[in-house]
């Protein structure tokens, strides 16, 4: 831990001193019970951090700052990076600034009455009783386990010392809280094990770690008080107790947050943040559209798979979605504005659109700045939705022909790709991507509908693993029937649950989850429930990244 550069603000000096004091205090490095074993740690994602702060202190506590970005591992989820990533010096600087800002808000005059929960005997000096009550309660929520008595006393002492130096109880309390907010026990989800009474000589996750694992998987946030209570009672070690909590969590609206995070990750939506389109060719790609296109897909997913609890495969065929006026102008469809900016929307039968693959989030994200890309779209479908990795292109490929979109001889993408595939080095991969992507050529680089390119009619015929396809709607139907689609989802959910790449040892479990998924008629709620109640989900000591993806 460290504080920002010492400045004229006396708080910096106080902070530095107190953190240094905590660091050298006896037992400061071990918040877990003596003799237990920490086997893995995962950094909280930015969403988890923000969700946790909102859940513990309320949504009006502002969290200003950015965290170190997660780097997507090849053919895997971005979330998996949390198991391998550390915190950079700049990232820790951000954490400390956020911690200071959060702690300051918690004890400010607007919030102290509700968030601190007790009043000091005097505001200009320490009050150990009030500080202890606050730090014990908040510490349990932040660290997702009770503070050991020695740790709690250290935090109380920090508040006391801060109050003495600053002449303010609340400043002292904030400084103690600040140190908790930059603690690895808050910033990382650390697995703590204990001896497994059912299997002598082996260990299991302790109840608190199980609670955290459940909560970050099912809610994308820190455990709530009920879940921590269940952990304290040992309920999570019994099948019945675990099922009771999982059922409660699956039934909660908070499941939607996790499903959103999962699908945003699975669909690679982080690329939309950096997406740019040629404003001359695609003037309709305005700021509102860029912001709303992933939101449209995520709303569609949550509505279909969580609220309606429908078959996952319908995601590729459903004409029900959500729309805004800004998106409507890209789709070329009328939108009746409601009181809310978003309206539930049924795509017209003859619109040429149905399902996820015809939404502009997918179509625009997997296109180039100035043209569509059957190859990128086909590759995305293979890799993201069917879990079938496509090799990268050779380094020395000449793409100039593909970029000549005004070539009067080769007016459509199909024409240009046909010539490109004459290069045998390219042909192998393009054969597994292009016959899929060409069926989506009714949509230009931003996802707007078209029937011609450079004046030539567009042929949208293609194939998917032997199935003849006559256009985008048929492609969705074919994907919905493809056995790899639900298997891929089950595998991705397994990876998301573990927050690390699947190891070879995990593949049997992932396959079992896929079978359970099929047995539950491809209900995503059931799949999340099955994963959360399986033994493998809580298993410790598995291999890390050995390329099973």
């Amino acid at each position, binding site marked *: 831990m460290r504080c920002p550069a010492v400045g004229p603000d006396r708080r910096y000096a106080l902070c530095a001193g107190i953190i240094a004091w905590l660091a050298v205090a006896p037992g400061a490095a071990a918040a877990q019970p003596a003799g237990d074993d920490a086997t893995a740690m995962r950094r909280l994602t930015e969403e988890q951090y923000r969700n946790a702060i909102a859940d513990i202190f309320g949504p009006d506590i502002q969290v200003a700052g950015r965290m170190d970005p997660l780097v997507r591992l090849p053919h895997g989820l971005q979330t998996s990076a949390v198991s391998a990533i550390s915190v950079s010096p700049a990232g820790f600087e951000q954490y400390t600034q956020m911690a200071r800002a959060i702690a300051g808000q918690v004890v400010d005059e607007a919030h102290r009455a509700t968030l601190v929960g007790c009043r000091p005997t005097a505001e200009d000096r320490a009050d150990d009783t009030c500080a202890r009550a606050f730090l014990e309660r908040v510490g349990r929520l932040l660290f997702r386990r009770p503070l050991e008595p020695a740790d709690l006393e250290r935090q109380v002492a920090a508040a006391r010392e801060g109050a003495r130096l600053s002449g303010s109880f609340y400043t002292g309390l904030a400084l103690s809280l600040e140190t908790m907010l930059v603690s690895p026990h808050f910033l990382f989800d650390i697995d703590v094990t204990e001896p497994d009474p059912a299997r002598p000589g082996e260990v299991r996750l302790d109840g608190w770690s199980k609670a955290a694992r459940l909560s970050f998987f099912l809610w994308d946030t820190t455990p709530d008080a009920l879940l921590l209570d269940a952990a304290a009672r040992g309920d999570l070690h019994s099948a019945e107790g675990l099922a009771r909590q999982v059922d409660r969590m699956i039934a909660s609206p908070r499941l939607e947050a996790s499903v959103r995070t999962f699908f945003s990750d699975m669909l690679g939506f982080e690329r939309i943040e950096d997406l740019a389109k040629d*404003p*001359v*060719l*695609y*003037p*309709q790609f*305005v*700021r*509102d559209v860029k912001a709303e296109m992933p939101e449209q897909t995520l709303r569609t997913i949550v509505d279909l798979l969580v609220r309606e609890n429908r078959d996952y495969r319908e995601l590729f065929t459903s004409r029900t979605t959500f729309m805004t*006026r*800004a998106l*409507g*102008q*890209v*789709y*070329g*469809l*009328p*939108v*009746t*504005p409601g009181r809310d900016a978003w309206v539930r929307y049924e795509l017209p039968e003859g619109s040429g659109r149905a399902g996820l693959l015809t939404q502009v989030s997918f179509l625009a994200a997997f296109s180039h700045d100035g043209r569509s890309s059957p190859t990128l779209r086909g590759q995305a479908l293979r890799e993201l939705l069917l879990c079938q990795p496509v090799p990268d292109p050779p380094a020395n490929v000449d793409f100039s022909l593909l970029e000549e979109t005004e070539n009067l001889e080769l007016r459509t993408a199909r024409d240009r790709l046909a010539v490109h595939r004459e290069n045998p080095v390219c042909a192998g991969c393009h054969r597994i991507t292009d016959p899929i992507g060409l069926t989506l050529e009714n949509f230009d680089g931003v996802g*707007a*509908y*078209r029937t011609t390119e450079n004046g030539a009619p567009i042929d949208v015929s293609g194939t998917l693993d032997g199935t003849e396809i006559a256009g985008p709607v048929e492609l969705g139907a074919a994907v919905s029937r493809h056995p790899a689609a639900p298997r891929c989802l089950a595998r991705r959910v397994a990876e998301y649950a573990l927050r690390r790449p699947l190891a070879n040892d995990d593949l049997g479990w992932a396959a079992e989850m896929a079978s359970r998924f099929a047995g539950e008629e491809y209900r995503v709620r059931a799949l999340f429930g099955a994963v959360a109640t399986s033994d493998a989900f809580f298993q410790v000591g598995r291999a890390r990244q050995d390329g099973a993806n």
Partner: protein
Amino acid sequence: MNGIYGRLRRSWRLACAVLAALALVALQGIAGAREGSTLGFLVVDTRLAMHYGPFEADCPLGFEPTVEENFLATLGPDERERILRPENAEEYANAWKGEFINGPGGENVCQNPKAFLDDPRHPPHRGIQSPVAYGLNLDGTPDGRATPLTCEHPKFEGLNGEPAVDNQLYRAVGCYKSRRGTGESQQQGSELDPFLIELRGVDDLENDRQVEVGIYSVAVDDLVLRTPGGAPLPHQSFRVTSNPKWRNETTGRIVNGELRVDHLDRLFLRYRLFTWGAFGEVYSHEFRRVRFKLKLEEDGSVSGLMGGYRPLWNISTIGYCCRGTASTANMDCASEYKTFALMADGDPDPATGQCTTISAAHRIGGIPAFAIHEGE
């Protein structure tokens, strides 16, 4: 009026670039509309139909005088020379911005131009002298003779040789400095708030003997989504206003790919002022005996002319707006009002015979859009 028009100015080059870009993304080429189909357009380009012929031919006596120039014309040579000296700048400004535009009774030339009808210091403008203009034949006569609904007036020849077109508003304002600079700056901005045209029951886009035509203001909350460069985007959805006054319906026909509306008795369109001192005040533009002649373009857009008679009171209410218009825009609303009164060619007052409306034409352009009728 110039004040409002001036604030809405936009370059023609930008408009061309926008339309070209929109053509690239047009999703619903209107060719091949199904039987009984509906087409919608958001009319975003509503410039007053100004024809910029050779200046010497259009305005042989030069630009119309500003209110400041009208003031100077009231002075003898010696007094004019004196007051224009730099040391007398304050006296000069107080003189023309004071009594001259506020009148002896405290009336302002732009707030109440009628109060200056007998003041010879605010003479009527000379107007356009050349014979060619944009416009439509609104009175149906070949020569502008008086009819029960019109006063005798001169006609223009249309730009494509159409005979006997009416556009007295252009004749009145065509030599304003503020309306014709040089080059690109000649082009005027849109005059009206964006509005919707909806064609219903379209069976054939080339020739259709009858289509239903709705002309609607847009619901207040439905702002036009634009590119960062300011170009309105096609295929947006807009709710039709709930105010029946701004919902206008008639019939038309399509002739050789051109929509023609031969008669709409009254057309009202909402207009929200964004002038200082009157920001947000809502008025209506009023047009009488309106005609449209619009080309249905391949890319789904429309372009052409809208013509009709505009009540003088309506123009002055919207255009003059506020007391500051004369001194800030340097326009002599009293002179303009006298010009309108002299050139007015529609709706004669039964008592006096004085015409109360003036023929006008707008060059309009629309992009494909959806008109949403809530509750239907």
